[in-house]
């Protein structure tokens, strides 16, 4: 099952490598990973998506918690949550394709953020499956390049992850 694990991490050199190393060392899988400092400059917020049954996820969260620089670990998928991913797609856009891509981008509430005579760059934000759906809709042939941010997420409601 796909899980979103959110980690508060000391914003120190080497801390990220311990998290990534742990996943490699214990044969856990990482689907996506995003990390950046928070409003508190001493902390980074890391969000990763992984696959595993309950037993595996329990081990992952416990092992993450053992890392000295990990301050908090939360499995966002345990409760209601909001998740978003950002994607930039460069598409071949000539002739009739140009209008078609524009229409598809509108349907998915994407924006064209760069345009040349033969290419559009579309920006799209949403849950990962929506981004997948957009890629299917425009079709493999017109895709030149894709970059995705990986998933970020927060719990719904008043609940916060803090020190």
């Amino acid at each position, binding site marked *: 099952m796909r899980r979103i694990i959110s980690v508060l991490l*000391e914003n120190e*050199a*080497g801390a990220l*490598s*311990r998290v990534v*190393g742990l996943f490699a*060392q214990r044969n856990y899988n990482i689907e996506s990973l995003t990390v950046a400092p928070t409003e508190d400059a001493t902390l980074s917020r890391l969000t990763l998506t992984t696959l595993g049954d309950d*037993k595996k996820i*329990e*081990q992952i969260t*416990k*092992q993450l*918690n*053992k890392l*000295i*620089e*990990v*301050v908090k670990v939360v499995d966002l998928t345990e409760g209601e949550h909001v998740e978003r991913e950002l994607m930039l797609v460069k598409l071949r856009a000539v002739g009739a394709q140009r209008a078609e891509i524009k229409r598809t981008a509108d349907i998915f509430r994407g924006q064209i953020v760069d345009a040349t005579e033969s290419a559009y760059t579309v920006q799209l934000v949403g849950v990962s499956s929506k981004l997948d759906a957009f890629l299917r809709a425009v079709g493999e042939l017109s895709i030149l390049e894709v970059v995705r941010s990986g998933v970020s997420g927060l719990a719904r409601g008043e609940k916060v992850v803090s*020190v």
Partner: protein
Amino acid sequence: MELLSGGEALIRALQDEGVEYIFGYPGGAALHIYDAIFQQQAVEHVLVRHEQAATHMADAYARVTGKPGVALVTSGPGATNAVTGLATAFMDSIPMVVISGQVQSDLIGTDSFQETDMVGISRPVVKHSFMVKSAEEMAEVVKKAFYIASSGRPGPVVIDVPKDTTDPGYRVPYAYPESVSLRSYNPATRGHPRQIRKAVDLLLAAKRPIIYSGGGVIQGNASEPLIALAKRLHLPVTNTLMGLGAYPSTDPQFLGMLGMHGSYPANMAMHHSDLILAVGARFDDRVTNDPSKFCPDAKVIHIDVDPASISKIIPAEVPIVGPALPVLTELLATLEDRLKEAPELVDEAARSAWWSQIEGWRSHHDFDHDQRHRNEAEAIIKPQTVVQALYRATGGDAYITSDVGQHQMFAAQYYRFDAPRRWVNSGGLGTMGYGLPAAMGVKLAFPDAVVACVTGEGSIQMNIQELSTCRQYGLPVKIINLNNQALGMVRQWQDMQYAGRHSGSVYQDSLPDFVALAESYGHVGMRVTDPAKLDETMAEVFSPALKDRLVFLDVAVDQNEHVYPMWVRGGSLRDMMLSKTERS
């Protein structure tokens, strides 16, 4: 405030931690630190012959004293040579601080001479690591390193020290922090009272309970409440390889070690139990055999300071996160309260039926604790009898270190440890070459104690260069070399699983004359081949006349002997080979 260089601050911080010994080997990146060592007396440096040995000495020092051991190595190859020792300590949760020299900060990342990414290379086998950024933070980093190494589930910590941070020309005010707090690191200090009450309920309700305890009881100094609990409820006790000595081996309630080479009664009692009280043990693969067939009727109470060890392999009915000592102490108190109200809660009839079942297993097959008759029958020394002779010669009161292989299992099975911290071996990583440096670390910790290293001709050659260190520092350890002229455990597996094809496990007459080798280092060498002379030779090794000498006893033992019991792979704990032909 006093002004010290970073190198001086590092050594002063070790003094302030109460460090007695640094086991180390110098090199370019560590020279400022070595100069600071030279100019003080409080911390003694022990010069090893290979950095791996330094880490094992520090590790064993920690195992017997409970205080973190300290090793110091230089950058590059010095650092990489320390990695095996770090992994050894990490697997067995041993508090240790390894200080590695590093090239100066502005050369890091340039592939400079003797540069290696020590923090990176050691990352999977340390509890934590630091790279010192400036002389100013030296004292604080040392304080944190010792705190992390020795608290919670202990483990090794690396401090990587770029040469410029130890520069004697740059001095900073020195003050050793009195305490340290890390917002992201708060190990449990006691168990949850509700969980402890649940555990007591289960213990009282159980018909066939058993205590399975491991290294956590030894590390956590929890032998006393463990024994008290076992006595109070008349519980059978089995120990892991790492836990031997936590419960007295000569006590009638002790069933022996469990697991792959565990005793028949211990493995049978585990398999048939209805409740396992696991304390400071982690259900590793050498204990459980196939986890899906493990102890089918047993509920599990699992006490461990590391929450990640609980329900990792075998799900726990009652998990209790906390150090063994406070948890067991509180569990005992809760139990006494319950029994005060209702003494009839102990089901004496069930307990006595359980014990008669256990006695049945014991009489069916148990270790024969005097196998001298086997020697005489075949006119060759059986390796088990060497450990028995060692036990007799030392009155069961020695510190025993071991290497890895058949001799290690024979030592664990036949030397009966009645106190914790007396048995020192690499259980988790299984590091050959551990035994001799470990014995040296123990001897330095307790100079008046009898220290013997049970080893084999394979393992001993992995760190035999330390005989020179023993000479330099006058370390009269006793080396008992079970010489079967083959890598015994490998050979045993090849006999059992590869139709006797001894691939890469024999030496073809290339072994050294160990007696002459020991003598060339200035030690005493002895050799025994005749079973009839085993006891008298062993007595001589430990005689007052040789008290201050290192003695290397080379014992010619039967090459064809296997370690039994040995479980049947993929089975449950009750599926064992009891001899070459007999199956449980």
